[in-house]
């Protein structure tokens, strides 16, 4: 198992190679990427900020939990911070397991816990030059108001 908060491009192939072993029958890679719009607003990039020491600890805790719940040590996760452009990977989760069901479930558990607990914030940058911190707890307004 290995986890890291990084400030450079995440190399998916490296993460995959770290979890593969002959006793595993399934490897699952989750890649979270910066998309080009949010709630109807065109996005050009995202600045990720974090509470570094706690984010590192919390990410390790999440993966330890996943390791215990789903019985695999073959978990490698990197979350990137700093400035990312559209299409770049912000998080990559590599999980391998003897069985595919557990590999999928462990991967899903990790991303959902990241969304819930990891002290990381993102400031979206829009085509009109403005930027805003994203609040996932706020009610999204999509489309014309009725």
């Amino acid at each position, binding site marked *: 198992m290995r986890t890291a908060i990084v400030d450079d491009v995440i190399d998916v192939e490296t993460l995959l190679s770290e979890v593969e072993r002959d006793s595993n029958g399934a490897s699952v890679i989750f890649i979270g990427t910066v998309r080009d719009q949010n709630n109807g607003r065109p996005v050009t990039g995202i600045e990720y900020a974090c509470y570094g020491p*706690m984010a590192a600890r919390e990410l390790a805790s999440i993966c330890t939990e996943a390791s215990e719940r789903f019985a695999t040590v073959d978990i490698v996760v990197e979350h990137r911070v700093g400035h990312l452009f559209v299409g770049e990977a912000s*998080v990559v989760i590599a999980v391998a397991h003897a069985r595919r069901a557990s590999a999928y479930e462990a991967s899903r558990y990790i991303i959902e816990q990241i969304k819930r607990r990891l002290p*990381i914030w993102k400031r979206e940058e829009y085509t009109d030059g403005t930027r805003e*911190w994203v609040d996932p707890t706020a009610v999204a307004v999509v489309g014309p108001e009725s």
Partner: protein
Amino acid sequence: MTVTALLFASYADVLHRESIEITLPSGATVRDVVEHVRAMPGGGILPPSPLVAVNQEYARADVVLTSGDEIAIIPPVAGG
């Protein structure tokens, strides 16, 4: 005793700082730190019960603090 409150993202922007040294009577809790920050100019951006971590671990509002503690007031997280 003196503790340090850490602010991030939108909270840091609105309060124009990333950390605040706060002097409190002994026996003070996480809630006292939150109330102190909420009373500052711009502090209204904090909800009454924000997510808080003490020394890098999530903590409840009634946790009693020790001098030197680092209290992170955590805006809604948006990782992934």
